[in-house]
C-alpha cells in the first residue's frame, strides 16, 4: 500500500543551484581555453542534448516495454530530470527571467504546469482505480489458489463472481457517470439474478474531482498556444525561449502519455503535437507519440481504460479466465485443470507486477506534482523580484 513518505528533496533550491552551478562552472572552465561558446550557451545546449538523450532512450523501448509500468516510471524519471535541469537554468539566469519577453513566456509555462497538476491528481485517482481492480483479481487468485485441495464448484463460482465484479468495475470506468448514479438497494431478487445486481455496490472508487472534469480538455489547455519560439524571441531572451518551449512540450507529452496509460475521466488522446524537427528531441518524442497512438488504435485496445501494458494483460487474462470458468465442467479434466492453473499463475504474476509497481508509480506521480509546484513557486519569486541583489 502507498506509504508515501516522500518529503521532497530537502536541498533548498538555492544551494542546489549553487552546487550544480559550481560543478558546471568547473567543467566550463576546463573547456574555456578556446573560449568560444559562453557558459550559458553551453548550458542551453547541454539541456537540449539531455532532453534528446533521455527521450531517445525512452523511444528505444521495445514494443513489449513501451507503456509498461516500468516504462512509465522511466518516463517520469526523465521528466523529473529535465525539470530539475530546467530549474537550474532558470536559477542561473534569474536576472533575465523578469525581463520582457521572457517573463511572459515563463508565466505561460507556469500556467501550463499548474494545469498539469490536475492531471497528476487524476492519475493518482486512476492508480487507485487500478488497485481496486487488483483487489478483484486477488479474490480470483484466492479462490483458485494452487494450494486449494481441489477446484470445485464453490471455488469457480467465487472466481466468476470476482471476475464479473472486475468486468463491471472496468466497464464502469468507461461509461463513468451514467450507471453510477443509480443505486439499487432492493433486496430479495438477488438470488434469481446474481450477476445483474445493483451496480452501485461495485461502484468503483470515486474521483477526487467533479464528474465534469475531463482529462482531454485539460491536455488541450496545457497545450494551448504552445508554439516554438520565433527567431527574434530567441534572440530577445538570450536563447532562453528555447528551453522554456522544450520544457512546455515535454510537460505536455508526459501528461499526455500518462493519460494514455492510466485510467482517468474522459481520456481523449487527440492532443496535437507540432514540434519542428530541428529540435533534436523532436524525433524521439514524435515517434513515441506515434507509437502510442498506434497502440491506442489497436482493435483490442480501442475501448481500453488505459494503455498501460499491465492493464491490458490483466484485461486479457481476466477475460480468458472468465471464459475458462464459464466453460468448466466438473469434475475437471486434467487438461482443463492445467489450463486453469496456468491462467492463475499468469494472473498471479500480473498481480505481483502491479503490487510492486503501483506504489512507486503513485509516489513518483506525487513527486512530479510537488516538483512542478516548487519550481513554479521559485519561478514566481524570481519573476516578482525586479532587481537582483547578487
Amino acid at each position: 500500500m502507498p506509504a508515501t513518505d516522500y518529503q521532497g528533496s530537502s536541498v533548498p533550491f538555492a544551494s542546489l543551484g549553487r552546487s550544480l552551478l559550481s560543478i558546471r562552472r568547473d567543467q566550463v572552465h576546463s573547456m574555456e581555453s578556446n573560449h568560444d561558446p559562453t557558459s550559458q550557451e553551453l548550458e542551453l545546449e547541454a539541456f537540449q542534448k539531455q532532453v534528446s538523450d533521455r527521450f531517445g532512450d525512452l523511444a528505444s523501448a521495445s514494443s513489449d516495454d513501451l507503456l509498461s509500468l516500468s516504462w512509465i516510471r522511466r518516463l517520469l524519471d526523465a521528466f523529473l530530470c529535465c525539470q530539475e535541469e530546467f530549474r537550474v537554468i532558470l536559477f542561473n539566469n534569474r536576472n533575465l527571467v523578469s525581463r520582457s519577453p521572457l517573463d511572459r513566456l515563463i508565466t505561460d509555462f507556469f500556467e501550463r504546469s499548474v494545469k498539469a497538476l490536475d492531471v497528476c491528481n487524476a492519475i493518482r485517482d486512476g492508480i487507485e482505480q487500478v488497485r481496486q481492480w487488483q483487489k478483484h483479481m486477488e479474490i480470483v487468485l484466492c479462490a483458485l489458489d494452487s494450494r486449494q485441495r481441489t477446484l470445485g464448484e464453490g471455488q469457480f463460482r467465487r472466481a466468476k463472481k470476482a471476475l464479473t465484479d472486475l468486468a463491471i468495475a472496468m466497464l464502469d470506468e468507461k461509461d463513468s457517470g451514467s450507471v453510477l448514479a443509480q443505486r439499487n438497494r432492493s433486496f430479495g431478487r438477488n438470488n434469481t439474478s446474481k450477476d445483474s445486481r445493483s451496480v452501485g455496490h461495485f461502484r468503483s472508487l470515486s474521483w477526487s474531482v467533479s464528474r465534469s472534469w475531463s482529462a482531454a480538455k485539460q491536455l488541450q489547455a496545457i497545450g494551448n498556444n504552445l508554439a516554438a519560439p520565433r527567431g527574434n524571441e530567441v534572440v530577445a531572451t538570450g536563447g532562453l525561449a528555447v528551453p522554456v518551449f522544450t520544457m512546455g512540450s515535454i510537460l505536455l507529452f508526459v501528461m499526455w502519455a500518462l493519460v494514455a496509460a492510466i485510467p482517468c475521466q474522459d481520456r481523449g488522446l487527440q492532443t496535437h503535437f507540432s514540434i519542428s524537427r530541428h529540435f533534436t528531441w523532436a524525433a524521439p518524442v514524435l515517434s513515441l507519440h506515434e507509437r502510442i497512438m498506434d497502440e491506442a488504435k489497436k482493435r483490442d485496445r480501442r475501448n481500453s481504460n488505459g494503455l498501460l501494458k499491465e492493464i491490458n494483460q490483466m484485461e486479457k487474462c481476466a477475460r480468458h479466465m472468465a471464459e475458462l470458468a464459464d466453460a468448466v465442467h466438473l469434475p475437471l479434466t486434467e487438461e482443463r485443470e492445467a489450463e486453469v492453473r496456468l491462467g492463475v499463475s499468469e494472473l498471479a504474476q500480473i498481480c505481483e507486477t502491479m503490487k510492486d509497481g503501483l506504489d512507486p508509480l503513485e509516489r513518483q506521480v506525487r513527486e512530479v506534482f510537488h516538483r512542478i509546484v516548487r519550481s513554479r513557486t521559485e519561478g514566481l519569486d524570481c519573476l516578482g523580484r525586479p532587481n537582483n541583489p547578487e
Partner: protein
Amino acid sequence: MADNSEEKLLAVARHIAKTLGRTETMTDDILQIFSTFDNHRFSREKLSEKMDGDDDPRGYAALEHSLKSLDRRISRYVAADQAIWADSADSAEFIDAIDELLSTVRDWNHMAAEKPVAACLDRADDLLQQAMFRLEDEFRLLIERSAESFNLQNRFSGDGLEGSGAGNGNFSSDEDEDEDENGDRIPVAHPVTDFDIVIDALPLGTINDLHEIAKRMVAAGFGKECSHVYSSCRRDFLEESISRLGLQKLSIEEVHKMPWSELEDEIERWTKAVNVALRILFPSEQRLCDRVFFGLSAASDLSFMEVCRGTAIQLLNFADAVAIGSRAPERLFKILDVFETLRDLMPEFEEVFSDHYCAFLRTEAVTIWKRLGEAIRGIFMELENLIRRDPAKAAVPGGGLHPITRYVMNYLRAACGARQTLEQVFEDNIPSVGDYRTSDPNDRASSSSPLAVQMAWIMELLESNLEGKSRVYRDSALSAIFLMNNTRYIVQKVKDSELGSLLGEDWIRKHSAKVRQYHVNYQRNSWGKVIAVLKLDNSSLAPSAASKLLKEKLKSFNMQFEEMCKTQSTWVVVDEQLRTEMRLSATGNVLSAYRNFLGRLHNVPEVERHTEKHIRHSVEDIEARINELFQGGIGFTGSRK
C-alpha cells in the same frame, strides 16, 4: 411438564419420519412437512439434531449426514427472500450452521486424501461458498440499511451533522441549538463547539452483527470480500456526509478560476468540513472499523484506509489548491485560516492516521500544511512587489496621506492579529540566496525574529516608495510635509499595535526622529526663507540707508509671507497634534523674528513716522494666518482678512 411432553412429541415425530421414510430423501421430506406444519415445535434442527445423535457417527456416513443436515439448514437461508438479519433467531441459526460447517471442514480436512471424504469436502466447500455470498449480501445490507435510516433521521430533524442523532444519543441535541450563522442556500453543518465527540455511525446491535459476520467470512477465507464490501459502503457514506456539509469536488483549476468571494465561502465550508471529518467522522469510522473487525487487525487497518482515503484526499487537495493559488495580498487572511486549521488538526491527523497504511495521508497533510506557509510567505512577497512597483505618478494634493500608506499599515496591523501564526510561518523559512535578508547585514545582525525582519523590510520598502513619491512635489517644503504626514501615520499605527512590539522601541524612536527631521526640513524650506528676509546684520548703517533697507525688507517680508500663506493654504497636516505643533513652531519662529524686526523698525526714527503705512500685519495677524494653515484649504477663503 411442558418440556417433557414437548420431548415426547418430538420423539414421536422422529419415529414417524424414520419408519415412514424408507429413503433419506423421504425422511427429509417428512421432516420438512413437520416443520412447515409447526415450525416452532418441530423445527428442523430440533428434529435433525436428535436424529444425528441417534445414528452412530462413524466414518463418512457421519460426515455425509451432518453435511446433509447443514445443507438443509444453510440452503434454506441462502435461498431466503427476506433479509436473514431481520430476525435475530434466523441470523443466530444461520451463523450457528456456518460455524458447524466450518468446524466440520476443519475436522475432516486431514482425511481429504480419501476419496469419499474429498467428495464430501467439495460439497462442503460449495455450501460454504454459497453461505459466504449470502453473508456478504447480508453484511452489505446491514451497513446500508442502518446508515440509511440514520441519514433519514437526520434529514428529518434538519440536522446537518452526520450522526448527531445516532441511536445512542451520544450527541446531545442542545449543542446544535447554537445560533445559526449560515442562512446559506447550501446545507451547512450547524456550528459545533465541541468536536470531542465520537459518534456511533451504526447502532451497536448492527455493529455486533457485522462483527459476527466478518469473523466468519475471515475464517472461511473470504476476508477480502468482506473488507471490500465494508470499505465501499462506508466510503460512500463518508463521501455523502462530506458533500452534505456543502463541500464540492473541485479541481485545482476550478479553485483557481473561482471568484475570490465564492472561494472565501468555500474555504469557510471547508474549514467546517475538515474539522468535522478529522474530529468526528474519521475517528468514528476508525472506531467502527475496529469494532467490526475486532481481532482481525489486518483487515481493520486496510479497510479503514480505504474508507477514508478518498475523502481525506479531497479535503487535502482543496487546501493544496488554495496554497498553490493566487498570491493576492487580500487573500492572506483566509489562507491564514486554512493554515491554522490544518496546523490545529495535525494531532488529529497523527492520531487517526497512525497505522502504516495511512502513513501517506499524514505525510500529505504535513506537506500541504507547509505549502500553505509557503503561500503566506509568497503573499508577503507579493505585497513587497506591490509596494515596490506602486508608481510615483500623481502626487497627493496638499502633501497628505497616500492611500498606499493607509493600505499597507492597516494591512500589516490586521496581519499582526495573527502574529503567532506568522511568527511560525516565517520561522520555518530558510532564507535562500538572493533573498533580501542576506543583503542587509544590519538586519541580520539584529536578534529580532524573522517576522520582525520581514515587517521591518516591508516598512523600509514603503518608506523608500514614499520617498520616491515625495520627489514628485516641486516644493521641497511640501515634500517634507508629505513625508512627515505619512511617516507620522506609520509611527502612530505602529505604536498602538502589535507591530510596535515587533519592530521595537528603537524603530519607533528612529522614526519619530524622522518625523521631527521632516518637520525641521519643512520649517527650513518654508518659514526659514521668510524669516531670512527679516534678518539684519548688526553693522550700523546710516539712518537713511537703514530706513530704506528696513522698508524694503518689510515689503519683501509682506510679499513672501502672503505668498507662503497662499501656497500653503491647501497643504494638509493630517494629525491634529502634529498640526498644532507645527503651527506653534511656525508662529514661534516667525513671530519672534517679526517682533525682533518690528522692534528694530521702531528704533529707526525716520521710519517710525510711516510705520502704520508699512506694517501690513500685526503680530496677531501673523499668528492668526499661520493658525489657519494645514487644514487642506478649508480656512483659505473663510477667515481671511
